[in-house]
């Protein structure tokens, strides 16, 4: 049986860098490093923006996944490909594209600023925009695959019994794909939490306003390697806690 040895090799490959990180961790100075204001600010901002980006992704991404999976229309394959573009685009390029679109001199950003005075770059809202752009496709793709794999007879039965489309979606479709919806949401949140390139390009870097954990880690790497390692550990610990907690609680496959 080759599966288990290969799986062990896979785990080893994925965990080796973390072993390297742990081996270089300055354990004695860790408590003072992780309670510095710059770390506390970055951690709070990361959790808030990643969560807001996930909520935004749910609001826009769940209907999008449903449309891609359930409706037939010309250009659907192309639309599906376009939706995954942010996944293949280098995030820095994504951030630059966001500036061209939503920046002060951007396609939509210019008129938006003149009309409302709202300026997205260099703001916390800009961080949410950049992370949503990068993270939402992970939710859409996961959910769409589940919707296409789900047994449509339940939906048909509900419709036959007189349920309207939104009711069917809410009461039948979503519960059917709940595990995948959760997996997609977690994936989206994790990707948002680790987002770096689009954020620093579109939203800049300022402690307390736009400096998320990945930005703080990057800047610390340039000046203080021990602080950077400590910051990374905090980020890893936070993601692990959330991922493990959600998995045990929700997954149908414990």
């Amino acid at each position: 049986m080759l599966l288990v040895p290969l799986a062990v090799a896979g785990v080893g490959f994925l965990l080796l860098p973390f072993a390297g990180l742990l081996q270089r961790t300055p354990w004695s100075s860790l408590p003072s490093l992780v309670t510095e204001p710059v770390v506390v600010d970055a951690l709070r901002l990361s959790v808030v923006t990643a969560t807001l980006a996930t909520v935004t992704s749910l609001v826009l991404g769940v209907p999008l996944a449903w449309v891609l999976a359930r409706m037939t229309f010309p250009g659907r394959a192309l639309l599906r490909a376009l939706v995954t573009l942010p996944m293949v685009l280098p995030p820095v390029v994504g951030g630059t594209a966001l500036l061209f679109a939503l920046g002060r001199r951007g396609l939509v950003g210019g008129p938006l600023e003149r009309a409302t005075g709202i300026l997205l770059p260099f703001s916390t809202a800009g961080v949410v925009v950049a992370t949503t752009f990068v993270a939402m496709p992970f939710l859409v793709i996961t959910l769409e695959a589940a919707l296409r794999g789900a047994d449509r007879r339940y939906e048909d039965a509900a419709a036959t019994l007189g349920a309207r489309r939104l009711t069917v979606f809410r009461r039948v479709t979503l519960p059917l794909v709940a595990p995948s919806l959760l997996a997609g949401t977690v994936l989206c949140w994790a990707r948002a939490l680790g987002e770096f390139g689009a954020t620093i390009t579109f939203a800049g870097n300022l402690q307390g306003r736009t400096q998320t954990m990945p930005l703080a880690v990057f800047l610390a790497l340039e000046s203080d390697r021990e602080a950077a390692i400590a910051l990374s550990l905090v980020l890893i610990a936070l993601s692990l806690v959330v991922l493990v907690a959600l998995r045990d609680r929700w997954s149908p496959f414990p």
Partner: protein
Amino acid sequence: MANHRASAVVAPLVVALLSTPGCGAGGSESTLLVFAAASLSDAFEELGEAFETAHPGMDVDFSFGSSAGLAQQVLDGAPADVFASADVSHVVEIVDAGTGQEVVPFARNRLVLAVPRGNPGRVSSLADVTDEALLVGVCAPHVPCGRAARSLFASVGVAASVDTEEIDARSLLSKLAAGELDVGLAYRTDVQAAGGTVDVIDVTAGDGEITYAATVVIHPRPAATADRFVAFIGGTAGQSILRRHGFLTP
């Protein structure tokens, strides 16, 4: 960073290979290894070529990095023949340690206010960086232009309302050029390297200036041609190259 370190390791090897006895009697003196501040890289690459043209048979190799890091390497015995620093204090330190000959200032650099073409934010002086209605950018404190901006603000007592601390001068200047920021603080040479995509307003107040200095390194004795290179930096040809890259005369 890794690049610089790699070149600091590779360059001495190159020197060692080139200065094997097979190259002839003067072989060990034909290649100079120059440790120089990263901000000098464009100007010094050009200056090195001009030096080689003016002195046939001589080669100059560079290792660029942060001045502090390079100074430490020189003190640790790295085989540099010349050390050129963005901060005169590192050269003084090396000379005081008996590792350098004398401190030779050769250029100055100065922080300027960079604004998008046409100055849409109507910035006129350093005091405008306190205006909350303007989008103000500086470099992050780990890069020289960021440290210098902070000490400039402190020296004139300006409470700047900074909107972003960009990872380097290039990214700051590209956001200025795109008009996404109203004003930013960068070195003259950074602005020059951006190829005139932004307008410049001189900072008249405060302490936004640095002096570049070089020294011949003694390890354990100075390379015979090292002083010729240091003199070349300060000479007419060297100075005109430096000026073209935005540096000021010492």
